[in-house]
């Protein structure tokens, strides 16, 4: 009855499972150390020292923070909807991690004579998949905020929902212009095209700019962190959360930053392409490892940018946020799409 189970390529299964474990672990570790980087960079910008006690240069600080969160008392409000209260942070984390499945993390590796692509799934609809997962990310916040049964939480959740819906439109339209140029939705193919020619930032500077702003809004980062604006809403959507559930919400934000940096690098900055190096002259394994390193370096530059902006630009007011989204970014994105179309028409691309 279940003989088809024997036909599954066991090596493929193991290969993919190992890859998934590595990538999820990587996302977590990077998220942990982004929190550390955030505190150190913030300290540097404000002319302080920042956390430097735990371990050399304070590099054990994220572990100490994690242990602290785990051992904090867990409080679930009495009038909250218990199942949804627990589901909220879980969903936030799940959807943050899901997008990592289609990102090409590097070129191929050769292990025991098998060519292993460093991408979990090279699907036909890569970009749309990322877009879909990003659009689902708001449920974690909305469900958690509603289940908390607290007015401040609810306000935070509603703000998150309307903000993400508004900025998703401009994000989608700026991606359409990029798709018109690449002619494919496969992320790996987009990277290969950029490896052969110029990076997409050369063709789509305005599109990248719009995408960058929307990525800040989708990650709820300052200057768009109105869902958790602490001086109006106490803690916003995570007011009622404590212990590791709060930790999941905070970590999910950093995982989101990591993934959206990875997507931006893949789409606009050549992905795992090593600049000024012809990869075909290197052996497969060396090229594979170097490409992953190049990708990580590009991502960390973006992560630094995220942190830099947070400690430089103050938070928007809510009406300013909406005006920027609807009256500036969407018309700009539409103009960018039309201009790209006209350029392609006249140059017969």
């Amino acid at each position, binding site marked *: 009855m279940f003989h088809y189970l024997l036909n599954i390529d066991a090596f493929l299964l193991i290969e993919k499972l190992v890859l998934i474990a590595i990538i999820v672990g990587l996302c977590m570790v990077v998220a942990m150390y982004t929190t550390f980087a955030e505190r150190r960079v913030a300290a540097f910008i404000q002319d302080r020292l920042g956390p430097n006690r735990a371990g050399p240069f304070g590099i054990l600080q994220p572990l100490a923070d994690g242990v602290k969160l785990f051992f904090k008392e867990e409080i679930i409000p009495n009038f909250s909807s218990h199942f949804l209260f627990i589901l909220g942070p879980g969903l936030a984390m799940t959807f943050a991690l899901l997008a990592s499945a289609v990102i090409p993390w590097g070129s191929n590796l050769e292990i025991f004579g098998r060519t292993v692509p460093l991408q979990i799934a090279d699907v036909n609809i890569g970009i749309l998949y990322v877009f*879909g997962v990003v659009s689902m990310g708001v449920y974690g916040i*909305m*469900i958690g905020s509603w289940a908390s049964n607290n007015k401040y939480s609810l306000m935070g959740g509603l703000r998150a*929902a309307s903000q993400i819906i508004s900025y998703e439109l401009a994000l989608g339209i700026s991606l359409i212009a990029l798709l018109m140029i690449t002619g494919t939705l496969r992320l790996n193919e987009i990277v290969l095209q950029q490896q052969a020619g110029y990076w997409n930032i050369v063709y789509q500077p305005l599109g990248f700019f719009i995408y960058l702003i929307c990525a800040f809004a989708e990650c709820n980062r300052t200057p768009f962190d109105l869902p958790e604006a602490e001086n109006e809403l106490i803690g916003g959507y995570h007011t009622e959360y404590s212990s590791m559930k709060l930790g999941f919400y905070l970590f999910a934000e950093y995982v989101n930053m990591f993934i959206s940096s990875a997507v931006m690098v893949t789409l606009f900055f050549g992905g795992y392409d090593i600049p000024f190096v012809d990869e075909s002259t290197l052996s497969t394994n060396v090229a594979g490892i170097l490409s992953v390193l190049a990708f990580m370096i590009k991502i960390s530059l973006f992560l630094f940018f995220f942190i830099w902006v947070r400690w430089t630009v103050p938070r928007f007011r809510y009406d300013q946020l909406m005006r920027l989204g609807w009256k500036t970014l969407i018309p700009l994105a539409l103009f960018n799409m039309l201009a790209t179309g006209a350029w392609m028409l006249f140059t017969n691309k």
Partner: protein
Amino acid sequence: MQITTLLFLLLSIMAVGAALMVLFSKNPVHSILWLIVVFFAISGHYLLLNAQFLAVVNIIVYAGAIMVLFLFVVMMMNLNQEDIEPVKNYRLQILGVLSGGVMLLIIVLAVMRLQETQPVQLKVGDAGLITNLGKTLFNNYVLPFEISSVLFLSAIMGAVIIGRREED
């Protein structure tokens, strides 16, 4: 038993079960969350038919945008089970049953016409892939496509006019 049949059964049970939960949930927020589960199950069905584009667009548009707005409105209005009066209008109920029955009849007839014995096969059929879908849409059906987009535009304009504050 093929793996596709197994998946088909699982997804169908998930879809129908979640759809029933939409109806029987007392709390409107729970109903909406069950409806999101229904959309995921339906996207799973599209994936089984190798219609990846349709599957992911279903998630983006319905689960990702429309349901967020539903949830937004229900949360903002703070609709709780005790505030809502059940619909007691029998004429409406009879009409609902009738129109639902007609819908079911049409679907059953359409399925019987197909005479398909193996409805899902893994990795077979390419009608749902984005290239083929785009080419069909813009070659054979360009007029209906454009007309429906004009329809959407007029709906958006209507919403803007209704939502606009009176200026005086």
